[in-house]
């Protein structure tokens, strides 16, 4: 099978090629005068990675901004018409609104719940097991998570045996079964719950590591001074790990803005659950409209830029502190 052969070539060939490239670079450098060689070497070491970054990230981002000013087939300049579509079309406005809901609720719930899990598990002897259980969904694809939760949310008319776990619970305590993924606006929250299930463990693991970094003497001193556990948490623990909370929060914000797989698999944006990333996919593949699709992508990028600058700034500060 040629496919297998190709994969084998890629797996074995890439290390060989990199090794060969390294020695080739050394050879070239050795031909040059010592000073020039030293100046050129770093650039040659970065060349393969730079080529990939430019071709897959830098160039396409610029090109997408350009394409967003052209029509569906990228043949006629249309100015800001595609952006006008993004900000006036009812469907797109719904998607923007839903992303805002995702941004606020997904971020808040995962970070707070992650913190709760980190703090609680810190005090029990079976910490590793409990954290592992909450963290486990991180290893699973959103597609699989989508199937898992579609099954959880499964709906049968009242009277029929409910096979969905959630509706079985709801009917057991005497309520009507709900079509969780159809009833707007609650269906968006049902999708957010799936993302919360997947990402809480991520937040918990990072925050838990930060908690363990707090010197125990500090907590002991606060206890000796008669502070209650809640006071300690609020005025000692939270300020000390605020940097990590910020990191986790920005990561969650980025995910909320880019949310795609869960929506694509579970509702495909129907019943008012559309989000930006899925709307972009539809414009690109279902309607073949490069202009609109590019404009949606640019809107997404612009929303992420502040987070990006924040990240770079924080990283710089961290580097200078070293």
């Amino acid at each position, binding site marked *: 099978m040629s496919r297998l052969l190709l994969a084998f070539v890629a*797996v074995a060939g890439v290390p060989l090629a990199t090794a060969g490239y390294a020695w080739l670079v*050394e050879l070239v450098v050795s031909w040059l005068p010592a000073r020039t060689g030293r100046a050129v070497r770093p650039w040659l070491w970065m060349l393969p990675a*730079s080529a990939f970054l430019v071709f897959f990230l830098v160039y396409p981002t610029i090109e997408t901004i350009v394409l967003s000013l052209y029509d569906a087939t990228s043949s006629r300049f249309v100015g800001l018409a595609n952006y006008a579509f993004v900000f006036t079309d009812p469907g797109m406005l719904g998607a923007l609104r839903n992303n805002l809901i995702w941004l606020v609720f997904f971020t808040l719930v995962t970070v707070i719940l992650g913190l709760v899990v980190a703090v609680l598990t810190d005090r029990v002897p*079976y910490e590793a097991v409990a954290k592992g259980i909450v963290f486990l969904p991180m290893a699973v694809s959103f597609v699989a998570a989508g199937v898992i939760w579609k099954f959880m949310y499964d709906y049968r008319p009242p009277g029929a045996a409910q096979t969905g776990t959630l509706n079985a619970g709801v009917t057991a305590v005497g309520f009507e079964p709900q079509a969780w993924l159809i009833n707007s606006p609650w269906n968006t929250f049902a999708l957010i719950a799936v993302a919360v299930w997947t990402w809480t463990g991520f937040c918990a693991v990072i925050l838990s590591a930060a908690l363990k970094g707090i010197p125990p003497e500090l907590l002991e001193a606060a206890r000796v001074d008669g502070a209650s556990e809640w006071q300690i948490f609020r005025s000692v623990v939270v300020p000390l790990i605020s940097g990590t909370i910020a990191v*986790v929060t920005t990561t969650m914000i980025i995910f909320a803005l880019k949310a795609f797989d869960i929506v*694509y698999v579970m509702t495909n944006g129907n019943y008012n659950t559309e989000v930006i990333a899925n709307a972009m996919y539809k414009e690109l593949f279902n309607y073949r409209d490069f202009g609109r699709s590019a404009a949606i992508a640019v809107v997404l990028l612009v929303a992420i830029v502040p987070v990006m600058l924040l990240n770079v700034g924080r990283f710089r500060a961290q580097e200078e502190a070293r």
Partner: protein
Amino acid sequence: MTTRGAAVAAARVQTRRRAAELWSRLPLHSAVVLISLLWMVPTLGLLVSSFRPPAAVTSSGWWTAFEPPFAFTLENYRSVLTTYNMWGSFLNSLLVTIPATVMPILIAAFAAYAFAWMRFPGRNLLFFTVVGLLVVPLQTTLIPVLKVFTTLGLSGTFLAIWLAHTGYGLPFAIYLLRNFFAALPRDMFESAHIDGASPPTVFFRLVLPTSVPALASLAIFQFLWVWNDLLVALIYLGGRPDVAPMTVTISNLVNSLGQGWQLLTAAAFISMLLPLLIFFSLQQYFVRGILAGSVKG
């Protein structure tokens, strides 16, 4: 009071205190156990349902499987693996993931070494750019790259998706490895330099072997990210069934099977097998990668 009596009394006080402590910690324990159960139930439901016969799945909840008659079957797995092309998709997922894991790591290690241990003008600015690229949404890159791939006739091929995942995985890989390399002791490099070792020798003989933990974390990350990816596969493989990895096949099954839960659950579980195996055997590396990857405050 004799010393023995005192000891008994002290022990009694201690037991009582321990009991009181246990009682006061009951809310804590119940909260942790409740959260763990809540997090396990969805996956458990999936796993149980994938082993139940179709008639049972459609007529009763998965929790009733633990009552008689204990009707379990492997038929769902046989069915999705053969009739619904999950076996082919499993192989496709492997074919997509393994090269797409090896390629970015080596290329990134190269650049990361230059960033960490070579001096050149604009080094910091370039590295800040990489940190910035970490969060660029894939969505902004899809259309132009797809156009180039289509022109080159690469769209729908494995090569296209390997290259794409390499490009997308690089910022994180460079970031993680550069931070790890930069933390290696300076003496190590100086003594190698005195011995007359060339940069490639230092890189392959010294840096890579001492960085195995970081490389392992990164490999696990990239493997899971590619294995679980849907968007990149949808775009560059174009949904063709013969090259579709499992994520694409399952999302198609969700549309075509609708309520065929016994099949969907089996298919989803097959796709989770390898990630779960990695998760349980290499969790510490996975966690280490996550901790190193977040820009720490």
